[in-house]
């Protein structure tokens, strides 16, 4: 397993906060990981099919509800080329009750996890093959 101490406190750019309305349009973004200018024209769903597929569930969230969190995402959006966690929560920071979408950049951690998992699966499948032969 990866040693967690190898992962120092992440830099400020490790997460991005985006406020969405119920039409999946961006109200505000800190743009710390990627620029959202292009997404502001059409809304985010066209670029993020993962969000599109659960957006009806996200819209149902009420303030105080637990977040919806999806781990280890490999987005197809070209501006995000690593591995991320997405979380969605309904906020009451203003009267519009926007949805707070937080993108956590865990690329480095998950890349190491990927290497370990690949090795584990390769060994497991080789073992299964040997067991079937003998």
């Amino acid at each position, binding site marked *: 397993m990866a040693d967690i101490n190898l992962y120092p406190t992440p830099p400020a750019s490790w997460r991005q906060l985006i406020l969405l309305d119920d039409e999946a349009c961006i109200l505000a973004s800190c743009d710390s990981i990627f620029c959202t200018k292009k997404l502001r024209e059409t809304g985010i769903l066209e670029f993020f*099919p993962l969000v599109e597929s*659960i957006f009806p*569930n996200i819209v149902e969230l009420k303030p105080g509800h637990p977040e*919806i969190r999806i*781990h280890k995402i490999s987005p197809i959006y070209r501006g995000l080329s690593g591995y991320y966690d997405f979380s969605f929560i309904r906020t009451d920071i203003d009267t519009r009750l926007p949805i707070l979408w937080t993108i956590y950049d865990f690329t480095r951690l998950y890349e190491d996890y990927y290497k370990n998992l*690949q090795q584990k*699966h390769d060994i497991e*499948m080789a073992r*299964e093959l040997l067991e079937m032969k003998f």
Partner: protein
Amino acid sequence: MDKKKIILTGNFGVGKTSLFNRYLYSQFDDKYLTSIGVKVDRKNVLVNGEEMTLLVWDIAGEITQDKVPVSYFIGASAVIYVFDLTRPSTYKNLEFDLKYMDKVLPGVLIKVVGNKKDLISTDQLEALKKELYYPADIYTSAKTGENVEPLFQDLAKSLKGDFNG
């Protein structure tokens, strides 16, 4: 337009990502590269002249489905449970997994898929069918593309509620 979330799930190394890549991008790579989380893309299909969007989730393989994060199942309309026809370990938990998914997603449409059909003979396939707790709905080969398009097309028809199979 009607949108449906479909999950590709099953043990690791059964070919979920290969089915995903074959269906969505018409691509196939022989090299096994594990998946660690989730990748999602969409494809528009025509069902009886009406357009429908399939939002396909390719999720990391787990030995049993109770290891899959429950958040991945949110909003799913259908599950494609994939196993490898050449590896008994990938279908030995079929009964448990199907019952588990029915509990997490009550009444969800589940298609059981035996993949890597290109690696076994017709006789081997017939023998295997007798072994299975639950017969696969379809046998596919992501490598050759056999039955991949029909798998998703039939699923789309089922989700429209006019499946005759």
